[in-house]
């Protein structure tokens, strides 16, 4: 039954299924909105628990041979066939939330424009940019002629990508001012930190590596090449601490996930 439900549809049945999904989603949202606040929380908890339970059981349940086309050695259990449809469903839900964000943006900027509040010019720019990008993307897809393509590329490559690069490049400038301010030799630890940072920087750049390039390729003195010291700092000293923190973070993630899944979490959003 389920395999038929998740089978790709074509032609008119595809349109019917899409419309049906819209109608079903509309009804569900209306029901959820009309529910009293006290009922919403248990409902959210039940759905969260069931969603988590599916993935947990699928992951831990013993597997057996489950050949699929092209992969005779494929392993799985009775829940494995639903992984792909579940993944698609989650992708669709995630995709829809972008609409929520867009509505929120339009509300905030719309109000600002209508009431001529401070920053109205920025809001106007937001609407112009959004409409221009949206229109050209649709036009490029619907009528992919040279003008539409070029106009779209002008906005996407000429503006959006350039602005993106510029913002990232700002990191370099902020790094300069932050390092000038922050790397001050005030304590023993700060001095050690500064020296290590300098060695790593020198070991990371071509000109820095030239300082010790004349040291032999093998033997005792080889260990004093800046790139070798840098490598040791990154692969031994630094990565050990990264690993230790990663253990803590992994366990922390497990704890928060368990609290959310089992409805144990307390706080403003999760419980009152």
């Amino acid at each position, binding site marked *: 039954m389920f395999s038929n439900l998740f089978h790709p549809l074509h032609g008119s049945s595809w349109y019917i299924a899409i419309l049906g999904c819209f109608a079903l989603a509309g009804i569900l949202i209306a029901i959820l909105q009309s529910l009293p606040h006290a009922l919403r929380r248990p409902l959210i908890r039940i759905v969260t628990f069931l969603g988590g339970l599916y993935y947990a059981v699928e992951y831990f349940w013993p597997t057996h041979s489950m050949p699929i086309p092209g992969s005779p050695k494929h392993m799985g259990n009775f829940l494995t066939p639903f992984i792909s449809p579940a993944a698609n469903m989650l992708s669709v839900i995630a995709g829809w939330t972008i609409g929520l964000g*867009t509505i929120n943006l339009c509300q905030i900027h719309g109000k600002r424009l209508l009431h001529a509040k401070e920053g109205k010019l920025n809001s106007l720019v937001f609407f112009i940019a959004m409409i221009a990008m949206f229109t050209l993307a649709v036009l490029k897809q619907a009528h992919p002629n040279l003008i539409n393509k070029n106009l779209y590329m002008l906005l996407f490559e000429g503006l959006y990508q350039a602005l993106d690069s510029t913002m990232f490049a700002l990191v370099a400038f902020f790094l300069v001012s932050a390092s000038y301010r922050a790397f001050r030799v005030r304590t023993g630890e700060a001095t050690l930190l500064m020296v290590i940072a300098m060695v790593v920087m020198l070991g990371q750049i071509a000109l820095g590596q030239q300082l010790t390039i004349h040291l032999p390729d093998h033997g005792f003195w080889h260990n004093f090449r800046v790139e070798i010291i840098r490598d040791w700092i990154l692969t031994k000293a630094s990565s050990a601490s990264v690993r230790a923190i990663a253990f803590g973070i992994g366990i922390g993630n497990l704890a928060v996930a368990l609290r959310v899944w089992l409805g144990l979490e307390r706080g403003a*959003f999760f419980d009152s």
Partner: protein
Amino acid sequence: MEHASPLVRIMVPLFSTCIVVMIQTARWKQIKIRRIHGLTAIEEAIGRATEMGRPMVCTTGLGTARAGIEIVTLQALSIITYIVRSSAKFATKAVLPVFDPQMLPVTQEAVREAYNLEGRPDLYNTEDIRFLTNNQFSYAAAVAGLIWREKAGATFMFGNYYAESLIIAESGNQVGAIQIAGTPATMQIPFFIATCDYVIIGDEFYAASAYLSKEPTALGSLVGQDIAKGLLLIIVILGSAAITFSQMAGSSLGKTILDLFS
């Protein structure tokens, strides 16, 4: 692994049991945790923003728009919610720029609830919780702009951050805001240390909500996490020792242990 390996089938339920048991224990037994400086400074930062008459900018980081709502972001929201509750007492404005559209309704609900719990529902303003964009550097530009325009008195940055961390934090530094950051993203910690007044590092981030709320569930979970970490440490030490000695002795035990973990 597509499915759990035998070792994972033992370890994950074991760690989970530690956490759940300690959560239940904490409900009847009082647990104390050490002082975390960055978190005690939260009140100071709220006070400073209030005195200056400037708003606070609170961000829950980027998460990853590729994987739905992240646990790290939820944890960050729980800390930010505490900050909003504390600031409600002084009616200090809190602006929350949101990166992931999926987090927007969750954040709105959390902030509304926080104001309600403090008896100040009038402070809730939809314009203060705004989705900006889910592009990393557009978000960085938007938050930096927000900090400059609003002349933030305090900025709180909790959650997952990447290269945008420095852009946001340096903007806060330049407007003279008192800044507190907390992230499990180890690579961003140096940038935060260079630009913020207080930084909560690594897994201290997960202790934050327990420390702030003193809530038994969070405190118990924290102790459970520590027990699980202790177990993990024992496994690491025993595993490393076994592999080292077996290699020295030329035995195949080391390979068997490695296979068990792979």
